[in-house]
């Protein structure tokens, strides 16, 4: 049975990593991820895990060493934020294309420049097409739960892809929260033993990773990755079902909150979903048909499931905590629009970019967004196509 504890998001992740007891962690400290690795280092020195902790000289090396360990057959992890993820860049793609089930907590922080240490999603959004599965967490509880499920999703033979487990820097990572954790034994039974198909250390069945792959094979390997990403959707749901039996907590591809009869809805990811839920409750109490869709799984992008829920409303506001500088809108906005395009009847969709560099998103701003889309749902034309919310003129 679970146990109630008070932990920050980073402590919850570190505790989850202790319970997973990975064979290898290669990591480099970066704000606001730092204390994950710091706590893990304590677990290593106190003998609470058998993890080989490799203190590398950069994030490029962190990801490279993690890939090497995973290719050798180890259950390998790392963790990062912002510039660290950016420095990992080329090897992040290699982890996915080698089909190595690495799990990496990402503590979301704005990308430079100008330099900023606070939360937005520009770091992990930049890696959205790298071939990694991406799970986003609203709270420390969700970060912990997503971390444990990520191990099972990544290592499933139908998937074999790395997973980023994202939580909001400082807002979640450094805030103390009352959450429920599993017993160590329950976690170990849930994740099971990692049995890789190929390992570099198996001299009986030698394999080679990373050969030159030219015109006649590269394309087939990319098709395999594309299919593995699609295959991850049902696996994510299966793992969530099993996790629910163990923990009592329910996870799906997204949370549809008061969406059943909603006429207009906000789509959001991460910690700001909590504030949005408060506004939905307030509007519902006033008789308004407002709803919230909190996206948990961004990669693979669950467009079919989203069609079923969002296809029923008249107006949607998609909230992005990153700008893609496409001149069009944020990444979640553009994908939601594309995902709903084939519906015969589809909602009007507006984009909002909010919270860059850790800018607070207040209840007032969310009320304004709901008011905008209520007007649109009634046939009005109230807002810009994409609004940068809470920015000064």
């Amino acid at each position, binding site marked *: 049975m679970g146990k109630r504890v008070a932990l920050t998001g980073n402590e919850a992740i570190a505790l989850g990593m202790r319970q997973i007891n990975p064979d290898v962690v290669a990591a480099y400290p970066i704000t606001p991820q730092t204390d994950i690795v710091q706590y893990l280092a304590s677990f290593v020195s106190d003998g609470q895990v058998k993890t080989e902790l490799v203190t590398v000289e950069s994030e490029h090396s962190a990801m490279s060493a993690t890939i090497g360990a995973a290719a050798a057959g180890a259950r390998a992890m790392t963790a990062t934020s912002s510039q660290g993820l950016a420095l990992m860049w080329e090897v992040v793609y290699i982890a996915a294309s080698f*089909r190595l089930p690495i799990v990496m907590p990402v503590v979301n922080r704005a990308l430079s420049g100008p330099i900023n240490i606070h939360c937005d999603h520009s770091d992990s959004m930049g890696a959205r097409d790298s071939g990694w599965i991406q799970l986003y967490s609203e709270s420390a509880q969700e970060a912990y739960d997503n971390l444990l499920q990520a191990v099972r999703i990544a290592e499933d033979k139908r998937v074999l892809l790395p997973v980023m487990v994202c939580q909001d820097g400082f807002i979640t990572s450094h805030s103390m929260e009352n959450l429920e954790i599993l017993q160590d034994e329950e976690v170990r039974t849930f994740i099971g033993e990692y049995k890789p198909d190929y390992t570099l250390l198996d001299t009986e*069945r030698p394999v080679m*990773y990373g050969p030159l792959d030219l015109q006649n094979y590269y394309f087939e390997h990319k098709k*395999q990755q594309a299919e593995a990403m699609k295959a991850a959707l049902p696996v994510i749901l299966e793992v969530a079902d099993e996790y629910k039996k163990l923990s009592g907590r329910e996870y799906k591809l997204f949370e549809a909150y008061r969406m059943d009869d909603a006429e207009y809805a906000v789509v959001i990811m991460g910690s700001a979903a909590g504030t949005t839920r408060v506004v939905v409750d307030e509007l519902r109490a006033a008789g308004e048909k407002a709803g919230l869709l909190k996206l948990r799984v961004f990669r693979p992008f669950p467009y079919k499931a989203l069609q079923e829920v969002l296809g029923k409303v008249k107006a949607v506001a998609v909230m992005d905590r990153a700008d893609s500088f496409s001149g069009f809108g944020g990444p979640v906005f553009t994908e939601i629009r594309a995902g709903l395009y084939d519906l015969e009847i589809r909602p009007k969709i507006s984009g909002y970019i909010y919270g860059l560099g850790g800018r607070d998103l207040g209840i007032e701003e969310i009320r304004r967004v709901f008011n905008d889309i209520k007007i649109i749902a009634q046939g009005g034309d109230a807002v810009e196509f994409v609004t940068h919310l809470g920015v000064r003129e």
Partner: protein
Amino acid sequence: MTNPEQKIGGRKELGWKELPIGGVVLNPGSAKDYETGDWRSFRPLWSKEKCIQCLRCWVFCPDAAIIVEDGKMVGVDYKHCKGCGICRAECPAKGNAFEMVNEADIEEH
């Protein structure tokens, strides 16, 4: 366009459903089936007479294309030699045992 029927090392090219994932190669040493010799622009022609059998070319050749039998250099494996010229650069023999010749100037082509 690549011919989908094109074969390497006499093997049928596998489709994405049959291919091992992640680009792993399950039969080590199979690089010898990939004949890199056709990348070559300059061919090292070896002179048995000038060769002093120091085997520096064998040590330095990045493609293991120097053929050695019974401890002696006997020739160049042109199926794999890419024509980099390292053998010629490293050869200490007086007059040099290697001559780099443009493939276009070789009559058999």
